């Protein structure tokens, strides 16, 4: 449906671990409008991070679709996903995830360099 920045439909993610299946997401439907601020709350292990990874084009779902700014992520190539992550997704990680060998400036540069931004 046009108008949504992020839209998931019947999103499922199953991890295969130790001979068993872990169903992290099971038929999730989310619609986030442009400019909308959305908070997802839930206990540890309930699938919040998995959902964020799906919506941020970091992982592919087992089934269902993610549409980000009009692009169906399941139909994008790896190169197109990289471009989308560079241009349309920004992550603030739970841990800082700063590169310890980089200075503060270089850590910022590491994020912007792939976009081709001039120093």
């Amino acid at each position: 449906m046009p108008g949504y920045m992020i839209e998931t439909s019947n999103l499922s993610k199953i991890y295969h671990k130790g001979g068993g299946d872990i169903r992290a997401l099971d038929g999730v439907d989310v619609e986030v409008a442009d400019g909308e601020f959305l908070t997802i709350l839930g206990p540890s292990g309930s699938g919040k991070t998995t959902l964020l990874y799906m919506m941020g084009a970091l992982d592919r779902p087992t089934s269902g679709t993610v549409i980000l700014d009009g692009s169906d992520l399941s139909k994008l190539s790896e190169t197109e996903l990289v471009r989308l992550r560079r241009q349309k997704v920004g992550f603030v990680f739970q841990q800082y995830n700063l590169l310890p060998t980089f200075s503060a400036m270089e850590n910022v540069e590491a994020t912007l360099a792939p976009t081709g931004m001039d120093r």
Partner: protein
Amino acid sequence: MVDRDYALKYNLTVGSKVTYMNMQTAYTVKTNYTVVGIVEVGAMSLIRSTIYVNLPDAQEATKAPGQVNIALLRVNDPGKLQAVSGNLTRLWPTSTVITASDIAAVTTGVITMSEQTAWNISLALAAVALLIGLKSQLNAVVERTREIGYLKAIGWSNSDVMGQIMTESLLQGLIGGLVGCAVGYAGALYVLLTIGGELGRALQFITVDPLLLGIALAIAVVSGVLAGIYPAWRSARMNPAEALRVL
């Protein structure tokens, strides 16, 4: 007469006494000689402790009258070398006649074999270094899994990650090669400058070949690149979400 080094070692001068002890007979036979001259051999030789005695005296001292074990002959006309060699073999069928070209051929063969062995050892060491480099890079990639996941999350492409790992591997090979060449060069100089005596003199002709250093450096860089290919490829294929889950 005695060789100069032998004379220096035993403080011999003209007029000194030298005793030859033949212990190959039933009882030890001692023969005393007086040094009448000191010999300095111009050509480089490892053997510089020879005592020169007249042939009849030597045969008497060794109880081997009429015998020689080595005779060195000079053929004035090099074109007749083979003919002379053939005649000598016919005259003394039990003797071995070796010409200068035979010695040259054997020497060349030994040098070629030594060089081949050195190359084989070098290649084996390079292969070991390559494997160590590969293991080291693989460990580094595993340790940096989360970092690679983070870089991919912020928009680094597979080729960016691969380029990063390959560049690091190349630089490690280059730095390792430079350090190795410097240590090897210093080590070779140290050995050449500190080894004294006969061996030191014999090793003086050895030089450090810049071309060899260049080849060693090139092998180190190529090994670094080769060692980085698989870890880089593995990193590039890493799923960012899975990489970020690694604690």
